């Protein structure tokens, strides 16, 4: 999910560095048991995934807890863990915005407001909703875009994970790709969405079990939160690493180069609502809930866990700033991904990039002369989490930590391929290729599409890695597509005047507009100042402002076209649009099961956290 992932991809790690860690037999056993368990779960669930409803929608019988944990887990990929830990090292607590304001309001909105519509219309997918609301063209456009993204992102992430395993453990990339791809293919193709969700919940527990020790031990060694703050201020000569909002009044005041308007409206609305409310990868998990109350409760349960994730992602990044040491005891300084890539192995770009880092001239000289020294072993920001794991986790525990990373990768990939399979089968194959297939036929198509999807993913991953220029485009795919989709769905769901042709044209023109903005800045980096409204803006600001403009542009197109075209009769919109949809009455429940109560509690914690780290 490039939108919710740090800008620098670990896929760009170079290959020649020595492995960070060496696993012992106990660690290998921990990892092997994990693989055996997930594959066994796939075989166990095969018998319960025979119909289309069972295979693609997990029988719609998940409890709120399972759907909620799976909802969060599908987004908690290992690259996300490592990328955002690296961002925390680079930007401080500002990176937490992607977990709090960039997630919580949207998750609550999904549960409280949008879920009833998705659930009542009994759609199999988000493109399926577009079909009901705007017609076939909008559905096909969304489905093709989504399926392409899923395959490319799955491939890029698979390859990136293999590179991480190579760098961290020294494993052969082909070995990592083959083993992980086979495991994911087996358990998803056998058990369908049920198996993917089942394993995502398992993986969620493992991620916490494997990664939670790092911040706990790090805080003990740093002398608690106060000790951490004191040392960061002493090392970095700035206290802005601990403030979420204080330094966002001007682009130049914070290391991320963003403005609070971009964070609130671009990230907090366009990106976040686009991802959490309309991206089928995550919405599919909630659609599998066994009743409407569970479907509404699932994102709310997920929001509590999402608020806690910075403890295992952001905190290790901050701790890395003060605790990581070189062999001679001096403070280890990590460097940006592009610098690392230019210097390991050495290239002509290394020297100028190295000068922009905070490494001392002596260390820079050692690096440039390729002289072995205690401080010349370069590591990038994205390696901060594995470095912290290696620092604190001995045999067994390190295996568990590595399993957490692998589990994160596999949950992300399983999410990609299971969502791809559903969209391919129900939104492309069924309406465009074979409308008259039996239920068994579509299940078979779904299983085959998973195998096919994984094979194409592997090919796409290798292709993208060989052509570095494509990587930027692949990573931007989500950002280009998701904001126009949000505007299209929101207007369709809350404005009955929005017409079929307006929805399709709005989505299409919004995607083109968003892609054009991306290309404009890609070709002419100085134009970032126009997109983000400031010459001091940095690339992170471009993402959030581009999403905001794309969302607004799409909304304007839909509004204008709708005003000039004939609306659908209101009777046709029942079950699809707010105001003309009788929502099912939920059975009375004890107060402690009320969704509004838990949503209010989530809002209170969210507000308190933002004030605490203001």
């Amino acid at each position, binding site marked *: 999910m490039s939108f919710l992932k740090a800008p620098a991809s670990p896929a760009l790690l170079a290959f020649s560095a020595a492995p960070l860690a060496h696993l012992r037999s*106990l660690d290998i*056993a*921990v990892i092997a*048991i*994990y693989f055996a*368990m997930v594959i066994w*779960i796939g075989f*166990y669930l095969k018998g*319960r995934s025979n119909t289309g409803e069972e295979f693609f929608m997990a*029988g719609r*019988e*998940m*409890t709120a807890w*399972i759907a909620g944990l799976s909802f969060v887990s599908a987004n908690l990929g290992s690259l996300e863990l490592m990328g955002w830990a690296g961002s925390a090292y680079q930007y401080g607590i500002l990176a937490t915005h992607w977990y709090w304001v960039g997630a919580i309001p949207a998750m609550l909105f999904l549960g409280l407001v949008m879920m009833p519509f998705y659930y009542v219309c009994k759609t199999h997918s988000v493109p399926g909703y577009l079909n009901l609301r705007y017609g076939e063209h909008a559905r096909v456009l969304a489905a093709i875009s989504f399926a392409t993204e899923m395959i490319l992102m799955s491939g890029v992430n698979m390859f990136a994970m293999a590179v991480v395993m190579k760098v961290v453990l020294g494993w052969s990339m082909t070995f990592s790709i083959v083993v992980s791809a086979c495991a994911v293919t087996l358990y998803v193709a056998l058990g369908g969405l*049920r198996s993917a969700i*089942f394993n995502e*919940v*398992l993986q969620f*527990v*493992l991620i916490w*079990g494997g990664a939670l*020790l790092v911040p706990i*031990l790090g805080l*003990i*060694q740093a002398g608690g939160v106060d000790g951490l703050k004191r040392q960061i201020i002493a090392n970095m000569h700035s206290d802005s690493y601990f403030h979420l909002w204080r330094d966002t009044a001007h682009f130049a005041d914070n290391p991320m180069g963003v403005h609070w308007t971009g964070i609130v409206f671009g990230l907090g609305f366009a990106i976040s609502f686009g991802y959490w409310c309309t991206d089928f990868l995550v919405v599919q998990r909630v659609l599998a809930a*066994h009743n409407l109350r569970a479907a509404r409760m699932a994102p709310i349960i997920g929001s509590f866990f999402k608020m806690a994730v910075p403890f295992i992602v952001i905190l290790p990044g901050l701790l890395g700033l003060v605790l990581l040491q070189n062999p001679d005891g001096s403070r280890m300084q990590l460097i940006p991904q592009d610098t690392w890539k230019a210097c390991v192995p050495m290239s002509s770009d290394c020297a100028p990039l190295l000068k922009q880092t905070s490494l001392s001239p002596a260390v820079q000289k050692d690096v440039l002369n390729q002289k072995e020294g205690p401080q010349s072993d370069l590591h990038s920001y994205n390696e901060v989490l594995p470095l912290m794991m*290696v*620092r*604190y*986790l*001995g*045999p*067994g*525990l390190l295996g*568990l930590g590595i399993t957490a990373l692998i589990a994160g990768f596999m949950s992300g990939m399983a999410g990609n391929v299971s969502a791809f399979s559903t969209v391919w089968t129900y939104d492309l194959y069924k309406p465009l290729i074979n409308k008259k297939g039996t239920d068994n036929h579509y299940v078979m198509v779904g299983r085959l599409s998973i195998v096919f999807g994984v094979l194409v993913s592997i090919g796409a991953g290798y292709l993208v890695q060989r052509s570095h220029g494509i990587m930027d485009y692949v990573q931007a795919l989500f950002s280009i597509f998701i904001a126009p989709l949000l505007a299209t769905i929101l207007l369709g769901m809350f404005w009955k005047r929005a017409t079929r042709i307006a929805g399709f044209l709005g989505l299409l023109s919004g995607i083109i507009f968003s892609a054009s903005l991306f290309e404009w800045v890609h070709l002419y980096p100085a134009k970032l100042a126009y997109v983000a409204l400031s010459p001091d803006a940095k690339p992170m600001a471009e993402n959030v402002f581009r999403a905001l403009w794309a969302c607004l542009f799409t909304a304007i197109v839909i509004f204008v076209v709708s005003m000039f075209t004939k609306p659908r009769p209101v009777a046709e919109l029942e079950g699809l649009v707010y105001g003309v949809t009788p929502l099912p009455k939920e059975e009375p429940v004890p107060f402690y099961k009320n969704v509004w109560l838990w949503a209010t509690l989530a809002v209170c914690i969210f507000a308190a956290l933002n004030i605490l780290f203001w």
Partner: protein
Amino acid sequence: MHGSGIPIWFFIGVLLVTYGLMILGYGVYEWHTGSYPPLVELTNLHTPVWWGGLLTALGVLYVVKFRPGRVR
């Protein structure tokens, strides 16, 4: 998981017990022999012992509470 079959929480319990016992066992061995891994910090806290114990206890709780066939 809703419906029949083995609940997902049971699988999680089994995995936690397995991992917990493996890590706890190594932790006890490490503490007993005093052979701590080089380059790992804070070995004096005996992390594998208490973390392994915690995982085991949590796993046992889940295995017992969600074991197949238990009437809930």
